[in-house]
C-alpha cells in the first residue's frame, strides 16, 4: 500500500501536499489519518504544523506502468479482511542493529555457506570487499528466478519473474495481476520474499549478491513516493530552518531518503535511533 506523510499549516494543506506527492487528485481515492492537528501559534511563533498520513486506497489502481506493459491488474478482492491479521507479531521487536547494517551497508559481503551440521563455527561472516572471486551472479540470478517461480506456483498465483544484473546488483521483478497479494502490509511480504530469496541463493551458490526485489511494482511506487515526499520535506526544512524527522523506516527506504536529500542544497540528512525505530532526520545544513 502506498502512503505518504506530510505536514502543512492546516490539515487541508497537509493533505493537499500528500496527495500531490502521491500524484492523486481524487479525495475519494485516499484515506487520511491525522497524525497531529495544527496548533495556532502566537504571532506566528510556537505554532505547530498539521501532520497527516495519506494512504491510497487499495481499490484504486495506479496509473503507473512498468516498462510500457499494460496489464490490467484487477483487484485482488476477497482478502479485504487482512488488516487485523497483518499485525507484525512478536517478530519485529528483536531486529538487531547488525541486521540492518548488513542489509544495506555492505557491498559484496560474502558469507561462508554454512556447512552441514555446523552451527557455531560457520557464523562468522567473511568480509571480502574485493569483487574478484565472484560467485557467478548470472547463476545466482537463475537460482533466484527458479525460486520465485516456484514460490508463485506454491501460492497458486500467476506471474512473471524477470531478473537482470546491472552493476553487480541482481534485480528481481515479480509481476502479474495476482501478485499484488504478495506485497503485504507496507511491503512486509516483499521483504520476506527478498529475505528468503537471499537465503536460498546463499545456500545454493557461494554468497549472495546485492539484490533488489520487487513485487507488483510496489517498491518502485514506494520509492518514487518517498523521494517526492523527501524532496518536499527538504523544501520545508530550508524555509523553516528547522529539523524534521520522518517516521521510522527500514534501511533501504532510509537510503532512498538520504539519496534524495543529498541532491538538494541547504539540507543534510542523518539517521537516529535504533532499528526498528531508526528514523531519518532532515536538517538545515
Amino acid at each position, binding site marked *: 500500500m502506498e502512503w505518504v506523510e506530510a505536514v502543512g499549516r492546516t490539515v487541508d494543506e497537509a493533505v493537499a501536499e500528500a496527495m500531490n506527492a502521491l500524484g492523486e487528485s481524487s479525495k475519494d481515492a485516499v484515506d487520511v489519518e491525522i497524525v497531529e492537528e495544527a496548533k495556532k501559534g502566537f504571532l506566528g511563533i510556537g505554532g505547530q504544523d498539521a501532520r497527516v498520513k495519506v494512504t491510497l486506497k487499495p481499490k484504486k489502481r495506479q496509473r503507473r506502468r512498468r516498462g510500457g506493459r499494460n496489464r490490467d491488474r484487477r483487484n485482488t478482492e476477497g482478502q479485504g479482511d487482512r488488516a487485523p491479521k497483518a499485525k507484525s507479531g512478536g517478530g519485529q521487536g528483536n531486529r*538487531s542493529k547488525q541486521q540492518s547494517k548488513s542489509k544495506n551497508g555492505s557491498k559484496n559481503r560474502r558469507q561462508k555457506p554454512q556447512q552441514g551440521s555446523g552451527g557455531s563455527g560457520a557464523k562468522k561472516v567473511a568480509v571480502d570487499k574485493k569483487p574478484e572471486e565472484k560467485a557467478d551472479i548470472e547463476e545466482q540470478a537463475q537460482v533466484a528466478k527458479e*525460486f520465485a517461480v*516456484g514460490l508463485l506456483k*506454491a501460492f497458486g498465483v500467476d506471474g512473471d519473474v524477470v531478473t537482470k544484473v546491472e552493476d553487480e546488483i541482481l534485480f528481481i521483478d515479480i509481476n502479474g495481476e495476482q501478485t499484488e497479494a504478495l506485497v*503485504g502490509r507496507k511491503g512486509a511480504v516483499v521483504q520476506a*520474499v527478498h529475505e528468503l530469496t537471499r537465503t536460498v541463493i546463499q545456500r545454493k551458490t557461494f554468497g549472495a549478491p546485492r539484490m533488489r526485489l520487487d513485487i507488483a511494482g510496489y517498491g518502485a511506487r514506494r520509492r518514487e513516493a518517498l523521494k517526492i515526499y523527501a524532496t518536499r520535506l527538504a523544501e520545508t526544512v530550508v524555509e523553516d530552518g528547522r529539523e524534521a524527522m520522518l517516521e521510522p523506516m527500514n534501511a533501504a527506504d532510509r537510503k532512498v531518503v538520504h539519496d534524495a536529500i543529498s541532491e538538494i542544497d541547504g539540507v543534510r540528512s542523518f539517521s537516529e535511533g535504533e532499528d526498528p525505530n531508526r528514523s531519518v532526520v532532515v536538517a538545515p545544513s
Partner: protein
Amino acid sequence: MEQGEIVEKVVRYVTEQIVDDASSVEVEVISDGEDSVVAEVRTAKKDMGRVIGRRGRVARAIRSVARAGGDEEGLDVQVEFLD
C-alpha cells in the same frame, strides 16, 4: 480445496528450498475448524538453524509468506518450528 492448502504448499516449498535435507521436511497444517490454522514445521535437526536463521530472520520471513498464503484463503496463520 482443502483448508490451509496454500499455506501448506508455501511453507513446504520455502522450507525445502532452504534446507539440505529436503526429504526430512514435514509440514502439517492443523486447523481449528474456523478461520485459523497452525503450520507445524519439522526438519532434520541439523537444518533447523538454517530454517530459523540468524536472529530468527528466516523464520520470520517464512511466517510472513505463510500469512500471505493464509490471506488468500481468509485464514489466520501461525507457524511453529519444531524439532
